[in-house]
């Protein structure tokens, strides 16, 4: 899969100017509200006519204003899952789901009705009307409807934003499954770092209409200079780990990654499974000598790779733990007292590990 986007479009006082190429299974357009994420996705879908754009999905040119190409939305074959679902109220769930199939040439169809219904668990809803569905059910049907139009790319515009936490947790596994089945590349708009950390293989970071960074999710979220943009107080590194073994006696699970072994409360997943975790910068302490007599279970060895610019009383630091980036947020005084400088070998004491995909 490849998605090539090069867009220029005036939006009131800011100019959206975005150029990136994404090859991952799930590309997150990530940024604060007002960064231009939804405008960008609407331009990809053809719902907004841009001043200038070149959009290519897997070699198919959807728009190239320079060459006078600008396919109307109905000929782009992009599946669009809107924030508010936008199910047709006068049709049943079944009719909503099959709506797009009508317009897809038989040769371009993929995925079966039954398969999609089973994957999204919406079998019992088929004969109902959208008005009788819960928010989470509506979004699942909306995802199914977009999928069954056999799109070249699936666009999701903050599909969880209108849902409460419980409903979000209900939808996320379906998005993950969709990503892992890999039948269709996904572009996922979000302002929530937790969603991006959990789902994204590629991140396109937007701020004030511009692309600030593009790349592998682990790399982009692990960059010090982007911490304010990626997470602010919630900022932190993500690590892709593998489940090494379970410790039945203490109800723990041992994960391994380049940085070493990390112990977390027992996970209900088989050994060998790939698990993405997130370590927030404010949950990392730094020691210059190996700490002993400490209750923290996860102590990783590394070197200081980068010291950020101080903001108020605190400084953000990036560690290189055998190739794996780790972010830490320290007070300025601690940095001075410990004499921290780039290249110094240190120990990172990790207080809390959050499961990014749990």
């Amino acid at each position: 899969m490849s998605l090539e986007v090069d867009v220029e479009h005036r939006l009131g006082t800011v100019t959206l100017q975005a150029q990136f190429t994404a090859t991952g299974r799930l590309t997150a357009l990530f940024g604060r509200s007002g960064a231009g994420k939804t405008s960008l996705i609407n331009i990809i879908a053809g719902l907004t006519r841009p001043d200038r754009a070149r959009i290519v999905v897997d070699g198919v040119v959807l728009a190239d204003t320079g060459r006078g190409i600008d396919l109307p939305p109905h000929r782009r074959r992009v599946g669009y899952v809107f924030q508010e679902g936008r199910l047709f109220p006068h049709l049943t769930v079944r009719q909503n789901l099959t709506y797009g199939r009508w317009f897809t040439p038989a040769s371009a169809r993929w995925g079966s009705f039954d398969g999609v219904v089973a994957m999204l668990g919406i079998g019992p809803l088929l004969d109902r009307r959208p008005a009788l569905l819960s928010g989470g059910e509506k979004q699942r049907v909306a995802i199914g409807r977009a999928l069954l139009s056999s799109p070249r790319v699936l666009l999701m515009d903050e599909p969880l934003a209108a849902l409460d936490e419980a409903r979000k947790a209900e939808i996320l596994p379906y998005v993950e499954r969709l990503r892992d089945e890999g039948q269709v590349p996904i572009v996922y708009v979000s302002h929530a770092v937790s969603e991006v950390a959990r789902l994204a293989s590629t991140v396109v970071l937007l701020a004030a209409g511009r692309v600030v960074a593009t790349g592998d999710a682990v790399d982009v979220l692990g960059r010090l200079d982007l911490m304010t943009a990626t997470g602010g107080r919630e900022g932190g590194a993500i690590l892709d780990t593998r489940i090494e073994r379970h410790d039945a006696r203490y109800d723990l699970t041992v994960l391994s990654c380049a940085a070493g072994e990390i112990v977390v409360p027992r996970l209900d997943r088989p050994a060998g499974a790939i698990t993405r975790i997130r370590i927030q910068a404010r949950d990392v302490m730094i020691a210059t000598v190996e700490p002993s007599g400490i209750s923290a279970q996860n102590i990783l060895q590394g070197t200081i790779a980068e010291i950020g610019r101080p903001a108020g009383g605190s400084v953000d630091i990036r560690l290189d733990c055998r190739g794996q980036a780790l972010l830490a947020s320290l007070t300025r005084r601690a940095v001075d007292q410990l004499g921290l400088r780039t290249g110094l070998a240190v120990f990172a004491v990790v207080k809390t590990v959050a499961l990014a995909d749990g």
Partner: protein
Amino acid sequence: MLDLTPEELTAVRLSLKVALWATVVSLPFGILVAWALARGRFWGRSVLNGLVHLPLILPPVVTGYILLLLLGRRGPIGQILADTFGIVLAFRWTGAVVACAVMGFPLLVRAIRLSIEAVDPRLEEAAGTLGAHRLWVFATVTLPLALPGVIAGAILGFAKAMGEFGATITFVSNIPGETQTLPSAIYTLTQVPGGDAGAMRLTAISVAISLAALLASEWLARVVERRIRRA
């Protein structure tokens, strides 16, 4: 009381026939024009809007006279219709249909337009991303959701056609059995001595038909609305 004379019965039947045809003929055009006005972005939109509303502001007699000038046997359009298609409208019941359709058109379009404008354009966008061409979007999303308004507009047009007098009498005159509709018949009865009883009978029928149409439209709109919005 409802002991109608054969002439009166003919007038009632003719009026129903004319109003029905006027509604059926103008509905497709009305829907198209309402759609264009509600969603279209094209040059001459306000001109079209003005043109559609013209019969509402002009004196009906003037509208009828314009129709006579355009569609009469010697009129620019009437001549073509007569020579090429053999269709004569002036002083025929078909002419009454045209007069009623034209007079009811603004009401019909207005009701349909409002209900189309009330359809969430984001649903139409969604249909577009699912591969539906604009015409399909209209047929499968916009029109079904606007159906209550379409019904209301059609009934309004029908009621207007039942009561149309000025344009009809000017364009097709008042020929018993051919163009003497209910209002024309009432008018004639009030002009002759001893016609009061007949005028009263027809008035009662006129009121009953209009009320029935109104109630039917409310009921239909409710049924459709329920079918659209609920399970």
